[in-house]
């Protein structure tokens, strides 16, 4: 197992390098001249050719492409992503806190998604084909067809405006978490509880359940065993869900004015603040690779068959 962990971690390094290179190339492909954007953003009234050349030199744009990439990569490793074109502040001072806020939202949502999916999955599997099962699945079907921002808008309209219970936006108190977390939870739990349910249903037909029943084990204890075995499938799926939820909080963050990565990135896109966009893509893609690596390791820990491939 130790060997597997080392091999799997080593595999992530070239992937991270390729990702950083692609991120860098993506920005180099941009049709706009960064020097011009900087000068525009700083509100310089008349842009002369001299001024452009000077700004380019200050940004290091006059060096060859590969040298620029290496310099950029080395400074990124020290969390120095350059300065924002618009505010002039270091990118990390804006990105860091935002990343933390997004992470908080994601972690709480993922926990809620897992708890709700397992709960609903068990209820549905135990009442298969009956009214409870059908109505939960019907509701889930409807809710997953709904754009998450519409669900969010409806919840805001009802709980914040009509009943005035919860804050509509921002991150001020614990209550600010309730609406965004429930929107994310509802839209993802609706998908993931099906996995728990179908895994449990598959295990219901296994011999050990029949044997347990034949031996007269109480239903509760059979259910616990059933759950332990069927959660193996679910665990790997949940780990895959973390990066997906991390990346897709963009819409929710913008709707609730959550001071996280999603809001920062959309703001930077609209103001064409490239260093922030670049750092955002790099940080999230790196997080994605790291979480994926961990999830592969955990899968291998649970399921020894997967280790054979390496």
């Amino acid at each position, binding site marked *: 197992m130790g060997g597997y962990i080392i091999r799997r971690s080593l595999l992530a390094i070239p992937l991270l390098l390729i990702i950083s290179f692609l991120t860098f190339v993506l920005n180099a492909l941009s049709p706009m001249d960064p020097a011009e954007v900087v000068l525009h953003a700083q509100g310089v009234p008349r842009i002369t050719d001299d001024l452009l050349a000077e700004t380019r030199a200050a940004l290091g744009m006059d060096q060859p492409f590969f040298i620029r990439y290496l310099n950029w990569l080395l400074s990124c490793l020290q969390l120095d992503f350059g300065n924002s074109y618009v505010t002039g502040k270091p990118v990390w001072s804006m990105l860091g806190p935002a990343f933390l806020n997004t992470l908080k939202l994601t972690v709480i949502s993922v926990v809620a998604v897992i708890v709700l999916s397992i709960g609903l999955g068990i209820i549905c599997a135990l009442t298969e084909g009956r009214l409870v099962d059908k109505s939960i699945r019907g509701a889930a079907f409807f809710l997953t067809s709904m754009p998450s921002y519409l669900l969010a808008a409806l919840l805001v309209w009802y709980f914040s405006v009509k009943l005035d219970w919860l804050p509509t936006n921002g991150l001020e108190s614990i209550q600010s978490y309730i609406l965004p977390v429930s929107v994310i939870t509802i839209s993802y739990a609706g998908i993931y509880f099906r996995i728990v349910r179908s895994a449990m249903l598959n295990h219901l037909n296994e011999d050990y359940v029949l044997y347990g029943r034949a031996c007269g084990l109480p239903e509760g204890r059979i259910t616990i065993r059933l759950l332990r075995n069927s959660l193996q499938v679910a665990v790997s799926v949940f780990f895959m869900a973390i990066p997906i939820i991390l990346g897709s909080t*963009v819409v929710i963050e913008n709707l609730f004015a959550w001071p996280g990565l999603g809001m920062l990135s959309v703001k930077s896109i609209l103001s064409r603040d490239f260093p922030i966009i670049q750092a*955002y893509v790099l940080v999230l893609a790196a997080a994605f690779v790291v979480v994926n690596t961990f999830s592969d390791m955990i899968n291998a820990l649970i399921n020894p068959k997967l280790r054979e491939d390496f």
Partner: protein
Amino acid sequence: MKRLHYLFKDRLAFLSLFIITSTLLAGIFAPWIAPNDPEEVHMELRFASVSWDYLLGNDHLGRCVLSRLIYGIRPSVLWVLVTLAISVGIGAIIGFISGYFKGKMDAFLMRVCDIMLSFPGYVMTLAIIGVLGVGLENILLAFVLMKWAWFARIIRTSVMQYSDAEYVKFSKALGAGSFSIMRKHIVPVSLPDIAVTSSSAFSSMILQLSGFSFLGLGVQAPHAEWGMMLNEARQVMFSRPEIMLAPGITTILFVSAVNFFTDALQVALDPKLMSIAKKKHRKGIFQKANLSRKEVA
């Protein structure tokens, strides 16, 4: 494709198919169907309620909501469909090459796919919009760039399954060319997999596109798009919540129709599930969850 007639026996699937085709047709023939000009502003009709001239009322600029919904089909559904077709096409070509020829080519193409798939979809779409600027075409470009790898993966798995089949080996022994083997023996059997995958990706792409438009990164005003209509409605959400209804319900209806259709397609095309469905009298439609939907993201 004999199994397709099961699909028409399933009333829910038939209804879904009806909703999907009529929406597509309405989008194509929008100028003839829409009762009014979708971009014509009537300030005196702001937030007017339902009337005979404006069947779904008017929005915050007095524009006809129904006409905007119909014209909105074009970016929200038709362009997404075109994008889907392009990504599936690229994915199919790569999937067929690597699934059929295997070997070094396959290893190389799959590593490229791995790299593409290791980027989170939403983030990359945002990155591409960030670099190329806001607009529908950039989002669609990002979709193609992000999704082909995913399709290539799934199609490759499906092709691999069949490329070792006895009848393929037999054709090879007879001296049939690779291209004609693929066309005659592999494309028809892997088509169901491709259909189900694309259908489930369709609904997720519609939701994603409308999400990006909702953020103001997609279709730009004054053109109509469902996500953007919802965004405009959100701004008056506190005073006129009912404006959200029309675009909201339309989106939900269309996306659930696609979802139902995907599930039905899966049941109809998968012989294993079909037998369950027959036994359980259509209960099977819920049986196979289309889990892949948001995972596409």
